[in-house]
């Protein structure tokens, strides 16, 4: 079991460019989560899916951010027209089931730097 795989590990974009981040959850896990990590805000919840269906995107900035899960083997987080304040580590996690009593298994993250 390779764990949750996130690619790329590092991404550098120019201001105004698009960035797409990829996540491959652990096989058989039905819940997939996206978080954003900065020193100031810590781990901020963005969105999550259950059985590929979007359940809660209340943490997503309403403009420029979107997430999809086209199949059970991967999810993407897309940021359009990136801005310097989008610079952060984006973490993907998966869990066997939904609910606060289930462990989240995190990937190593994608560090996004917007110049």
């Amino acid at each position, binding site marked *: 079991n390779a764990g949750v795989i996130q690619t790329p590990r590092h991404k550098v974009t120019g201001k105004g460019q698009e960035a797409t981040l990829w996540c491959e959850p652990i096989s058989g896990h039905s819940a997939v989560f996206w978080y954003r990590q900065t020193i100031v*805000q*810590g*781990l901020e*919840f963005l969105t999550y899916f259950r059985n590929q269906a979007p359940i809660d995107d209340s943490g997503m900035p309403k403009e420029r951010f979107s997430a999809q899960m086209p199949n059970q083997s991967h999810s993407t987080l897309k940021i359009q027209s990136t801005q310097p304040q989008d610079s952060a580590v984006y973490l993907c996690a998966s869990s066997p089931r*939904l609910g*606060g009593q289930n462990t*989240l298994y995190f*990937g190593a993250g994608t560090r996004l730097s917007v110049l």
Partner: protein
Amino acid sequence: SQLAEENPWALSVHEGESVTVNCSYKTSITALQWYRQKSGEGPAQLILIRSNEREKRNGRLRATLDTSSQSSSLSITATRCEDTAVYFCATDGGGNNNAPRFGAGTKLSVKP
């Protein structure tokens, strides 16, 4: 605003000492989880403590939960340099359909 908050923001101890990280949360919960994140890695779960439990142990780690004061603590005994990491608590907001919410974390440094 964060639903969970760890304090202090940072701690520094020497190897062999004990240390405690605290967590306060704002909503009802079914469980609270503690995670550790080492540099360059994603967070990894240390302990899950359910709302009807008061204490949970995992080796050198001990977590407590006080639902009346909406607080939890994580204690590490006989610290080692490899315990250097950021420690997070995460709450579920009391619902089975809620994603865990984390705080900003406590940065622990263990020095030789």
